[in-house]
Every structure is written in C-alpha cells, then in structure tokens.
C-alpha cells in the first residue's frame, strides 16, 4: 500500500446547542464527529459512506481545514493542520481541494467560467497570461471547450457545471480532492459522465479522492476502500471487495441490504432495518447502533465498542463482528 497522504487521529467536532437569546448558555452538544481515526493513502479513492446526519460531510470539511476540530489531529503528510494558524493553513490549502454537491449553489453566478477557474490561480499569485492559459487547459481536461470560457454558470446544465466545479478544484494541482456527494444532484444519465471524468482525471493526475456519498452503487464502482460512518463514528473500514462481500458490522450489512436491486429478477425477501436514526444529541453510553441492531446484547448497550482490526486492512467497531462475519455465508449480491 502507498504511503499515507492523510492521517486522522481521534478527530472530533462537537457543535454546541444553546438556549436563550440574551443569556446564551450551552445546554447540550451535537457530536457530529466523535473521535474518528482514518488513513487516506496516496492515489486511492476512499469512500466515506453513511446516511444523512452521520457526520460524513463534517468529517470532509475538517480534513480540509474548513472547520476547526474540537479535538484530534489531521496530519497531511505528517504535518498537523489542526494545529496551524489561519495563515499557515492558507499556504496548505492549494494542496487539498473540494468538489461540492450542488453545482448550482457553488459557482458565483456573476463570474465567467474562465474567471471562476482562474480565481484560485489569481489568489495564489499566478500572472494573467499563465492564468488564462491554465484555465483553458483545465476546461479542455474536463471535457468542455475553450468556447465555453466566456459564458456564465447559468448557461450550463448541471453536469457541465459539475465539470466546471471539478476544473476549479484541480486548478492548483492538489494532491487530495474531497468530493462531497459530487453526483447526487445530477440525473442518472449525466452521473455516469461525471464519474467517468473523475476516474480519468485521477489516473492522469495521480489524484487522491475522499469520496463522500450515500449511494453505495456508485461507491462500489469508484472506491478502492470504504469507511462507513454512523452517528459520528466510523463503524467499519475495509477494502471495497471485503466490505461488499463480507461486511462485519451489522449497520454495514443493513446498508447493503437496503440498496435497491439493479434488476427485477434480483428481488429478495424483505430485510429492512427497523427504526430511525436516533437524535445525535441523545446519544448515551454503549454502541450507538444498538437500539436498531438485531444482534444487540446487554454488552452492546453498556460498552461502547472501539474500532479494532479484524483482519489486515479491515477494521470494525462491533463486539460481535466475528460471529456476524461467519454468518455472511448466505448468498448476497
């Protein structure tokens, strides 16, 4: 395995819940990210999956230094960005970039495409001629022509706008690109174009992706490794093959079972998970998944399981992972 590009240690972000207007006081907190460890290797696509509210987007923003963490360390090639001051962080920023979910909300409507793509170059002190030349080359690289360069974002479709977002993210030649649900706002026929583009660019430029998504179908297509989050914790990390073939955490298993089949002849008897995601603020002791888990025991309700190694490259946070994995023998798709 390649060297780690990013190492996250015990990373946490707690958002306070306050009451009162004049005398604000903190009554509780939301532990959006609550002590996660994660390694992103150079050149890989690591998918971070989970349902809404699990903290996957917050984790992505922490890794980019867009949010200050409550606790923990974020090492980019050994340098902790959590300990940096804003000026130092700005220096680092060109090395990690983000692709956003909403291609409509993330591009300034008053700037032309060329200016949008050249903006990060301008901020980082490139000369005008070089900026324009690079912007046109980037447009070309994402499958748009330089004839598009003087148009405004509203003149483009969702898929084309997402290409512009990608060109912008790549302008400074980053090592790490965090893509937060990059295709979930796009129509399915257009999603495939953008996914293909991201894979081509990764190969050409040697990019590392942290791919945040709730869509396990796309994750299965694009990821090398997968980390599953539930209520602020990472519950399982494994290679894609291991995770899809023999999930070791009951939540991972439920997520896989809940994906709609891709063809009607694969319909199977119902295995829907019961219950809702609990309120993150109400989490107390024990395993967070225990209230919904069909395998939960008394130990699960009192003892919080730590993420531990199950096999090489496969970690899980469940007391009963071994038993569950043995039970994976039944056929699954």
């Amino acid at each position, binding site marked *: 395995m390649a060297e780690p590009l990013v190492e996250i240690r015990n990373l946490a972000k707690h958002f306070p819940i306050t009451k009162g207007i004049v005398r604000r006081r903190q009554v509780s907190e939301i532990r959006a990210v609550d002590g996660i460890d994660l390694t992103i290797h150079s050149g890989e696509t690591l998918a971070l999956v989970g349902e809404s509210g699990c903290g996957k987007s917050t984790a992505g923003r922490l890794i980019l230094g867009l949010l200050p963490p409550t606790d923990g360390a974020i090492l980019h090639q050994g340098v902790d960005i959590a300990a940096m001051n804003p000026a130092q962080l700005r220096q680092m920023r060109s090395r990690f970039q983000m692709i956003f979910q909403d291609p409509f909300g993330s591009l300034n409507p008053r700037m032309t495409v060329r200016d949008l793509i050249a903006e990060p170059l301008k901020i980082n002190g490139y000369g005008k001629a070089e900026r324009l030349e690079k912007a046109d080359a980037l447009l070309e690289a994402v499958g748009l022509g330089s004839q598009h360069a003087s148009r405004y974002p509203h003149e483009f479709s969702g898929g*084309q706008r997402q290409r512009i977002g990608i060109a912008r993210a790549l302008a400074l030649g980053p090592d790490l690109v965090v893509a937060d649900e990059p295709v979930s706002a796009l*129509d399915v026929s257009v*999603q*495939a174009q953008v996914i293909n583009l991201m894979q081509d660019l990764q190969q050409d430029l040697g990019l590392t992706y942290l791919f945040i998504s709730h869509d396990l179908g796309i994750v299965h297509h694009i990821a090398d490794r997968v980390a599953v989050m539930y209520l602020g914790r990472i519950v399982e990390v494994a290679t894609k093959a291991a995770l*899809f073939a023999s999930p070791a955490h009951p939540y991972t298993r439920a997520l896989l079972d809940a994906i709609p089949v891709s*063809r009607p002849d694969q319909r199977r008897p119902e295995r829907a998970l019961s219950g*809702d995601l609990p309120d993150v603020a109400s989490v107390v002791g024990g395993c967070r998944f225990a209230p919904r888990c069909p395998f939960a025991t008394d130990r699960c309700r009192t003892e919080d399981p730590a993420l531990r190694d199950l096999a090489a490259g496969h970690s899980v946070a469940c007391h009963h992972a071994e038993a569950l994995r043995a039970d994976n023998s039944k056929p699954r798709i």
Partner: protein
Amino acid sequence: MALLNISGLTTVFETATGPVGAVDGASFTLEAGEVLGLVGESGSGKSVSAFSILRLINPPGKIIGGRVEFGGRDLLSLAPREMRAVRGKDISMIFQEPLSSLNPVQTIGAQVMEPLLIHTSIGKRKARDRALAMLYRVGIPDAESRFDVYPHQLSGGLRQRVMIALALVCEPKILIADEPTTALDVTIQAQILALLKDLQSELGMAILLITHDLGVIAEVADRVAVMYAGQIVESAPVQAIFDDTAHPYAAALINSIPDRTRQARRLIAVKGNIPDPRHLPPGCRFAPRCGFAQPSCVTTVQKLTAVDPTHATACMRVQAGELPRPIPTLTPELPHG
C-alpha cells in the same frame, strides 16, 4: 378495462415566449392492483403527468388535451366540485417531501382524520378511531401518544408514514406516489417501499409510482413506462424493460446505473444533456444523444407503438426491426466524452 386510462394527455406551461410543453400526448393505463412505475429524469414530465391526472396543475400550467378516464368518466371534464370528491377518496397522492406537504400547524392526527370527515359521513369519534388505526397500520410506533404531535416533531421516515396514512385512510383505488422515497435515507427507503407493497396487497389498490430511480422500479414495479422530454418512449412489464429493452433511451438509463454484479472500469454514460423544452428536436427527442440514430430519426416524428401485446416503443428503428431487442450496449464513449 383498465382502472385508469390516460390518452393523449398534453400539458403546457405558458411563458413570455409562448407555451412550453411539459407532457406531450402521453398515453398509458393503470390496471387494478398493479404497480406502474413511471420513470424518467428531471424535466421528463413524469410529475406533471401525475399532477395532471388529479388536475392539480395551476397557471401558468394548463392541460390542453387528452382524456383521463376513471370509472367511466373523463376526469378532465368534471366540474371542480366533482373532482374534489375524487381526490383523496378514489385517487390519492403522496409527495416527495413530507415536511412541505403536511400542514405544519395541524396535528398529524387531525390531518389523517380530515379526509374521512370530508369524504364520509362518519362522526368525529369514529374518524379518530380509524385515523389512529391507520397510523398504527403504517408503522407509527406508539401512535396513540403521537396522535397530537405536529409534523416537525417527527423524523423524515415517520412523516412519510403519516402522509401515507393520510392518503390511504379512505382506502382509495389508486395511489399516486411521486418520488416517495427520494428524500429519505436508504435504510428508511427500504422500509417505506416494503410498507407500500404490504398496503397495496392488503387494500388491493393500484399504485402509480413516479421515480427517477430504476433501482426502486426494479424493486417494486409490475409494469414500467419510461418518459423522456414529455413523451412516453417505452412501456412494458418490468422484467421486459430490463431484459428485452426496446428503446435506446431506456437502455441508456439502465446501462448508466453502476451494476454491482459486474465490475467495469468505466460507466456507460449517455452523451449530452436533456433537451431544452423550448427547443426540442423535431423528430425523435432522444435522437441527438442516441448512439443508434440515423438522419431520418432526427426529422421523423415517432409514435409509441406496440411491438408485442404488452410491449410498446417509440423507436421507429426497433419497430422496423432494424435494431435488436434488447438494445445492445454501446462501447463506452471516448474519454471525457
């Protein structure tokens, strides 16, 4: 005789530059007790079709043609008062976003009681009992104590269950479900789809399921109609849509979904974008994006025509036997295509 028979439905939206067609001559039937999946991408006209069936199109939108036959009557020619007696009683609808569809200042119990009080002559006490039973039936835990809560106090999954209870409390013959699980997480989506299937077999209703997600279609539909740019381009039993695909657009849609059973490095993308409804191609609307199009496809208007008793396609090349079924998979586009 189909339960619901839609023919030539045409809905336009008036704009400053003239009318823009959203649904253009859509014809399909819904049989008693079946799940018909109406699938298409954004802007394909699938939701406008559903809203047109219930005549929920407001200006600048306007239904300008077609018939919606239900129980021997054309719903499009009913008086507003008669139409109100159909909505919520014979034909109900649930929507994508339960939070914006439920009344925020009324308790969920009162909202589920309302259709009963409007459409039946049972008293308040009985209506409350039936509403409560329905809330339990759709899986609201401890519905008795939740009867008087407001929508914002519930999770997304529970809100969608409340909306289903509200739609089904009068035991309609048809439920129109417009992207009922799109706003929900995947584990909750599985719960709601299972619930809809259960209720359908229990109450014997027909469901018109509108979705962009072919996975949802593969999971629950009996028959499928595929829409593109306001027109139905293919309709068939669900298995035939996947195995015997008869329209290049339907094939492209199926192929662009990552399939976990086969690992390909590249997804098979459809080139280009959905056409602007103000500037539609004159012939086949998919022709500019289609890998099988010939010059005549671009200029010839094509009609949905049966190619076997249960299977219809609008592709004239398939109708003429020039293209095989299922439509073959094209080799992936050039990089960055």
